């Protein structure tokens, strides 16, 4: 039983992450902002979760 709790917590958090990721992906960027998004490219940070790179 003691082993189950951390697994449940991590699993729950992963599900929360996937849900919010999907929600965010499915919400379109407002049209007026598309130009600014291109101009904020960061050069030194190689964060792979950055959604702008792809």
């Amino acid at each position, binding site marked *: 039983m003691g082993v189950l709790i951390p697994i449940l917590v991590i699993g729950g958090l992963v599900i*929360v992450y996937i849900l*919010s990721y999907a929600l965010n992906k499915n919400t379109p960027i*407002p049209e007026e902002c598309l130009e600014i998004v291109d101009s904020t490219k960061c050069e030194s940070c190689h964060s792979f979760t950055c959604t702008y790179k792809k």
Partner: protein
Amino acid sequence: MSFTVFATAIISAMLINNVILMQFLGICPFLGVSKKSSSAVGMSAAVLFVMVIASAVTYTIYDLVLYPFDIPYISTIAFILVIASLVQFVEMVIKKFSKPLYKSLGIYLPLITTNCAILGVSEGNITGIWTETMPYWEGLFTAVSVSVGTGLGFGLIIFAFSSIREKLDGSNVPASWKGVPISLVVAGIMSLAFLGLAGII
């Protein structure tokens, strides 16, 4: 829960233990984004916003879930997942409900998902503030005050540095020092100045 706690936390986190110059958290945006003053302001606003929410949420999770269930060792996994999903969620909400807010700070949100400053502050709150006997609300208040101070300190340095950067671009720097090396030396001199603030409190 008093004003003294708030003020002390803000001054010490913003000036004395500055997040960039003294703790070396968030160096990536410091060197990468801070070329234009306008984007520096937007970026630091986004970091402040997410940092406050993230430290409140992670402190709550640690105090009310991880510690009572005797699983504090998964805090790293839990915190990174919480912060990553929090950033996604906040970005979605801002995208949907407020165009001006999205224009000014929402576009920087994806950049800070894995920003070390945010995870660093959350971890620092646990090692520095949290104790077994501290009441939940008091700890939460201190954690939030510290994160506000840290976010302000981040913004202060990023903004100051972007102004210096604009001046640096026009000056005659030796070829081998151009770019990152001279920025690092400038940061070192700024850090030397901030070292002198250590005796304030």
